[in-house]
């Protein structure tokens, strides 16, 4: 393992920083908790914001058809998606 933070932790930090979740710390986000609707309660504007941030952070390209519920359902699923492409 490298010393860089694990992908899930980098995603959590991006979520908190890029979406301005005041009063929220990265470690407060559960790996399996739903990101949208229930759970974190993010919406489609947040999804767009998150796509931009993830693309820059990880140097990947996220196509619109990949924006489905499965990939973006939790930190865990996002992490698997990103690790398969980096």
């Amino acid at each position, binding site marked *: 393992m490298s010393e860089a933070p694990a992908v899930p932790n980098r995603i959590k930090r991006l979520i908190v920083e*890029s*979406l*301005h*979740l*005041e*009063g929220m710390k990265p470690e407060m986000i559960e790996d399996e908790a739903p990101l949208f609707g229930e759970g974190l309660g993010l919406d489609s*504007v*947040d999804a*767009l*914001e998150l796509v*931009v*941030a993830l693309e*820059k952070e990880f140097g990947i390209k996220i196509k619109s058809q990949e924006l489905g519920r499965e990939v973006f359902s939790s930190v865990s699923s996002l992490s698997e998606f990103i690790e398969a492409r980096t």
Partner: protein
Amino acid sequence: MNHKAVSRRVAVSGVGAVSGLGWGIGPLWEGLRAGRTAIRPFERFDNTAHRTHLAAEAADGDSNGLASDPRWRRLLSLADRFAVFAAAEALAMAGLASLEDSEAGVFFGSSTGGMFESERFFNEFLRGRWRSAKLRDLASQQVNAPGDAVARWFGVSGPVRTISSACSSGALALGAALDAVRSGEVDVAVAGGSDSLCQLTYAGFNALRSVDEGPCRPFRAGREGMSFGEGSAVLVLEPLERVLARGAEPLAEFAGAGSACDAHHMTAPDPSGAGAAAAMEAALLDAGLPAGEVGFVNAHGTGTPLNDAAEWRALQRVFGERAGEIPLTATKALLGHLLGSSGSIEAVATVLCLRHEELHPVPTCSAGAAVDPELPVSLVLDRPLPLPGVKAAVSTSLAFGGSNAALVFSRWKDS
């Protein structure tokens, strides 16, 4: 919708406001009474490159606990927050804890919605600073955003409408709300307007050379233009009988509204004042009040040479020989021009003046203190003018495009 096809008398049961004088009706009335202007150097955005450098900025104030809601800063633009705060204050004053079981509607005016946040986005985005360019900043851009935010926050599921007609938006929204309560379309109207300072309007009015380098001087000799302001004002309107039935006291009766267009020019008013007079006459007719019963006028009074001259001609048309005698104030001398929200905050100022039976003054200013001899209005200076027993008042909003609106409020007295 449940149209009952009736014409009901309409009461103002609550008011709320955010302005350069502070967050809330308390600081607003205290500042208005004192004739203290909120127009001063401001920090909302870097204005060094602009031609003028003043505005009545609504600096962060006490949000009455609203800021503890995680949606407050994250999901609402500044104009949305002004609106939600003013609506919360107005509903609390009306004693309406929840609107979810009421036939309620929102009627709002705005000129630029979340333009300030959109400008912030593009300022970052166009410089390639993607980390600080937030897409969320674009989400509230539409002019309907403040009214929609109020509807979402308070769970209003009846009609929710925004009117954007430049500087008469707030007054026209109140007129629409009056119709909706009268007709039985709604039992509660949350009505008003909201606008925040932004570079688009700041640069635009400066390019038109309609901004005074000092605080604006409505109706004064040597006046050179308007000053900018920001904020929101909300009036809760209900059928008079409904307010009385629950033992509450109306703040005023909303007696009538009227509008008329100059059909003259994109930005300049018709110098004859015919359109502005037609709006005032329509509002008085709607209220069933002769002009002789109007105790004071809250003028549009932007302080531009053209507006104030045209408004004086309109006052002459409506009030005849009384035009120079009727007590007159211009709230913009204290709050600046709230653009799409000016009609609503001036309506609130008018209601407060009726309620307290005194007319708020404008400050004497070092430059051009004297009233323009060409427009000899009875401008109330420095100290509030007691008006015991005052019956009714007119508030005017005269906008770009020649869109004129007038509102008539009557003092509530238990009789």
